[in-house]
């Protein structure tokens, strides 16, 4: 929230009235003719956002504890025949949401680790060590940004079926999700740009003190880059959690599939109330992440990730 008011640095030098002003000036704000309609508009906006943003999710939570017959007959009524918490338990154990949730967690964790390793080591090499040809290499990394992900869909799938050089088949193996996720140009660009702005004097001082490239990376560069690691981490986890098409293609064994892939196939054979309970459970972790890291999401940093679709 504070991140949104960031450009206060542009505050005018002399005028006292405009510490944090928008379109409406304080003289205008003092007039009733303007103040009340604007307040009304704001209230209407809030109501609209509550209904549209929160409404569907509240319906989901409500229906996950409403007996199926009630939801079918009176979808908009509030608990006509009481609350049934048993549906959540059934979804958790009998429908095996616990296992699929665990699969999703493992996939998200592995892809987070892989993305961080590639982005930090690569960013460090390209920004700090800078071997000959690193400009060209950076260009090749950025070039992949221009290629829409669909172009990769089929050839990447064939690569997973038979990985060149090592000739491994990665179908039904989580590496099939982790490794391609790590080939994220957005991450490398973000981390490299961050490393570029670290003070070089510290690196030089460390070198004078006899620190090698590994020592420099571990003891100086990494501890200084917590902010960017945080950004990359949160978006890595959320993106993996949301992914559907790729895990659908490469993880065929139902026991290994993540929630997003299992949910559509579960629907026809699952009781409605239990199924909605499963949907609710699936949303809990992304919502919790959002609430904890709100400032990261709402400061517009996702803009750079948006291009990846």
């Amino acid at each position, binding site marked *: 929230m504070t991140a949104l008011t960031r450009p206060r640095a542009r505050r005018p030098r002399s005028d006292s009235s405009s510490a944090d002003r928008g*379109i409406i000036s304080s003289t205008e704000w003092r007039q009733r003719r303007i103040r009340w309609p604007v307040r009304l508009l704001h209230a209407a906006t809030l109501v609209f956002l509550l209904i549209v943003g929160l409404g569907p999710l509240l319906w989901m939570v409500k229906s996950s504890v409403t007996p199926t017959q009630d939801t079918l007959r009176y979808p908009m009524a509030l608990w006509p025949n009481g609350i049934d918490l048993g549906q959540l338990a059934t979804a958790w154990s009998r429908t095996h949401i616990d296992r699929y949730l665990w699969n999703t967690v493992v996939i998200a964790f592995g892809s987070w680790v892989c993305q961080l390793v590639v982005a930090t*080591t690569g960013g460090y090499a390209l920004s700090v060590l800078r071997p000959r040809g690193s400009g060209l290499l950076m260009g090749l990394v950025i070039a992949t940004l221009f290629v829409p992900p669909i172009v990769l*869909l089929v050839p990447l799938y064939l690569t997973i079926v038979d990985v060149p050089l090592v000739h491994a088949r990665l179908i039904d193996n989580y590496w099939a999700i982790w490794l391609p996720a790590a080939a994220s140009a957005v991450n490398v660009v973000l981390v490299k740009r961050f490393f570029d702005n670290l003070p070089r004097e510290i690196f030089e001082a460390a070198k004078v003190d006899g620190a090698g*490239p590994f020592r420099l990376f571990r003891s100086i560069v990494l501890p200084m880059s917590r902010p960017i690691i945080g950004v990359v981490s949160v978006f890595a986890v959320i993106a993996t959690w949301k992914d*559907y098409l790729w895990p659908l293609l490469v993880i065929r064994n139902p026991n290994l599939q993540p929630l997003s892939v299992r*949910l*559509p196939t579960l629907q026809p054979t699952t009781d409605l109330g239990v199924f909605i309970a499963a949907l609710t459970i699936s949303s809990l972790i992304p919502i919790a992440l*959002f609430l904890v890291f709100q400032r990261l999401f*709402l400061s*517009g940093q996702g803009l750079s990730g948006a291009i990846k679709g």
Partner: protein
Amino acid sequence: MSTVTDAIPAVDRVAARRGARPRLTRDGLSTLAFLLPLLAVFGLFAWFPILRAVVMSVQETNLVSEPSWVGLDNFAHVLADPQFGIAVANTLWFTFLALIFGFPVPILLAVLMSEVRRGRGWYSALAYLPVVIPPVVSVLLWRFFYDASARGVFNTILGWLGLGPFPWLQAAGTAMPSIVIEATWANAGATVIIYLAALVSVPPELYDAADVDGASIWQKIRSITLPHLRSVIALTLILQLIATAQLFTEPLLFTGGGPNNATLTVLLLIYRYAFTNSLGGDYGMAAALSLMLAAFLALFTAGYYRLTRSWSTSS
């Protein structure tokens, strides 16, 4: 004396630039060690598949028999496929509807929200909430909302107003607009946040000056706020076009492309060519269609990067 002390920082700077380069093979080896993860992952899972897509588009390949060179046959087959025209038309229709629904609403919301003085964080959090819900969950949830019977969620609400029941996803005419409404709900929050960030960065001096000149609120919005948003609007427009052209999860899970191919999109067609073909995947045709779509999108992507560049240098 002064010349010597002045010279030291300059020497330092040169040393800093030079010193960053590896001097000996031991350093060269450790540099390689740091580059290795990036080279391996990008090589195998980005650069190689991109080249392979180009090669595959001129091959007939299905994993069973040896690939054979067929020239531009794959492209010709795709262009001759009656589904191709349907998919392109549907994707354009979706893009058009997505602009009508999803373009003005975020701008309006962001302008309204930027004037909120207390609790703006609540507004943005509410607007962004749907964006973090996994798309699969949103789609499956909205399938209940779109239930075509009079007892469906939306039909119940509209029934209170004496409207409906509407068939939503089950009729060719309303299926695509239904998908657009869900997609807008799921994505608009991200756009609102982008606009909001741009709105807060409008220099307050401009509004002060307009006040001195006696401008009304509406005049300020028209001559200061909206022009200031112009570059961001162009950016999000391009991003939206790129995203809508790659619509997949929603039509697959809502309708599977139906009814009667009314929601078959280009990406869904690529998926059909490659993965739901009973005779084994026609990877060549899928690659050919992917490349055609990519070439089309490259125009927009190039525009995006030109804009971001001019945007970041001008502001």
